[in-house]
């Protein structure tokens, strides 16, 4: 089987909560082996879109293909949308790793315990083999020395790096990040962004919801700008941030006082 060119293909995706539709008819292709950044004002639907890709939210309409495989729902030839079997959902989902804004480490397990949990409980690896693999992932995020520490004994940046190692342990093809540095002190965001940069350089397919415009501009191969639940812009950082810039994007960037965004605004 040849892999389709997109790691993630989103077609006609809509998501409503009751009567409020937060995503309107999203069509989006996410390239393999590259970092795609989702940016936009709060309430634009970027986190909801990411959570749909992680299958933490079920889209109301439309389909998502992960490496060509339907995630959760499948469109039949007659246009009817049906749920795919649970084991298939789990299989497709296992190719996706998720990193959260709040880290969401399990507080009763050590860093290594967090990383090895699914390897042992889900994949049925022996503890020794799981720990060997877990240590390798912790080494990758530079936290080998903290393996036996509990989350409460780690800084926010370290916790987030453990969370990244936990997601990596299952060797996913795609990593999703939901505002991974938003709850970190400014001096701790760097260490997390560096890990993400390295992953991007290694060719990991990443989708990053972020407010770090500087990171998006430098690491993002593509930038998707969402506004009011629609994809307003989709292009390379060069295309999006260079003048003439879309007025809505300019307005959005002006609300950002961080250095990354200021740097982008100057030449325009």
């Amino acid at each position: 089987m040849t892999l389709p060119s997109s790691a993630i293909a989103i077609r006609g995706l809509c998501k409503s909560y009751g009567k409020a539709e937060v995503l309107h008819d999203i069509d989006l292709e996410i390239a393999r082996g590259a970092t795609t950044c989702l940016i936009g004002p709060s309430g634009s639907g970027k986190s909801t879109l990411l959570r749909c890709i992680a299958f933490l939210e079920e889209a109301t309409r439309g389909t998502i293909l992960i490496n060509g495989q339907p995630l959760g729902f499948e469109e039949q030839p007659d246009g009817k949308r049906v749920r795919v079997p649970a084991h298939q959902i789990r299989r497709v989902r296992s190719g996706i790793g998720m990193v959260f804004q709040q880290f969401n480490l399990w507080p009763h397990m050590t860093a290594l315990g967090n990383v090895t949990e699914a390897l042992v409980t889900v994949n049925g690896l022996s503890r020794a083999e799981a720990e060997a693999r877990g240590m390798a992932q912790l080494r990758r995020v530079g936290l080998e020395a903290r393996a036996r520490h509990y989350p409460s004994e780690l800084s926010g940046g370290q916790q987030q790096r453990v969370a990244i190692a936990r997601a990596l342990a299952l060797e996913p093809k795609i990593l999703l990040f939901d505002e991974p540095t938003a709850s970190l002190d400014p001096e701790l965001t760097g260490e997390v962004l560096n890990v993400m940069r390295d992953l991007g350089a290694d060719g990991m397919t990443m989708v990053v919801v972020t407010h770090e415009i500087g990171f998006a501009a430098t690491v993002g191969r593509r930038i998707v700008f969402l506004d009011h639940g629609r994809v307003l812009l989709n292009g390379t950082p060069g295309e999006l941030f260079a003048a003439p810039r879309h007025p809505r994007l300019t307005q959005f960037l002006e609300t950002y006082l961080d250095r990354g965004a200021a740097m982008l605004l100057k030449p325009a």
Partner: protein
Amino acid sequence: MSFDVSVILGALPAILSGLQITLGIWLASTAMGAVLGFVVAALRHFGPQPLALALRLAVEVLRGTPFLVQIFLLYFGGPFIGLSLDPVPAGLLGLSLYAAAYFSEIVRAGFAAVPRGHVEAAQCVGLSQAQIVRRILVPEMTMLVLPQAVNMAVILLKETAVLSIIAVPEATATISAIGSQQYAFVEALFLLAVIYWGLVEACGRAGQALECRLSKFRFA
């Protein structure tokens, strides 16, 4: 008339046997109540709707009526529905059910207090519903509810005194009987208060020590 506790202490073997029964019923009903309470909370959380409603009703009745009335009804009313129990089994059953009602509410609140994101993180790495309960929810919830659970254990210890009215030979029944015999009722109740208070203090200290030990497993 003088205040002399030594009159009561003369009957030490009887006092110790009463204490033994109090401790036994307390520990057994706390353990059974905690286990049953957990099962009830889990069934209310994950079970079918009609069962959840029935359990909720049972919990409301047990929490909404005095334990004194419950134990009377169980012991004296039980025979009408073919449930004739000796005092100790009746006390054990009654106190366990009473404990289960409260423990189920504590556990329910505990489940609700585990951050949703911790469950989502587990879903994302492929844990099944049962695995999430076993590996994530139960350990995290246990940490969160520990203070309330210790508090409940303390309340249960004191509620064992109510069992004296159905003639369970526990500490209150035994010691107050000795007091009556020796015409030293105040001394008897004073001694009883000291004993209960000592046990409650010990239980509280044990709970604190446990919380301290577990504190690194939880977030501030």
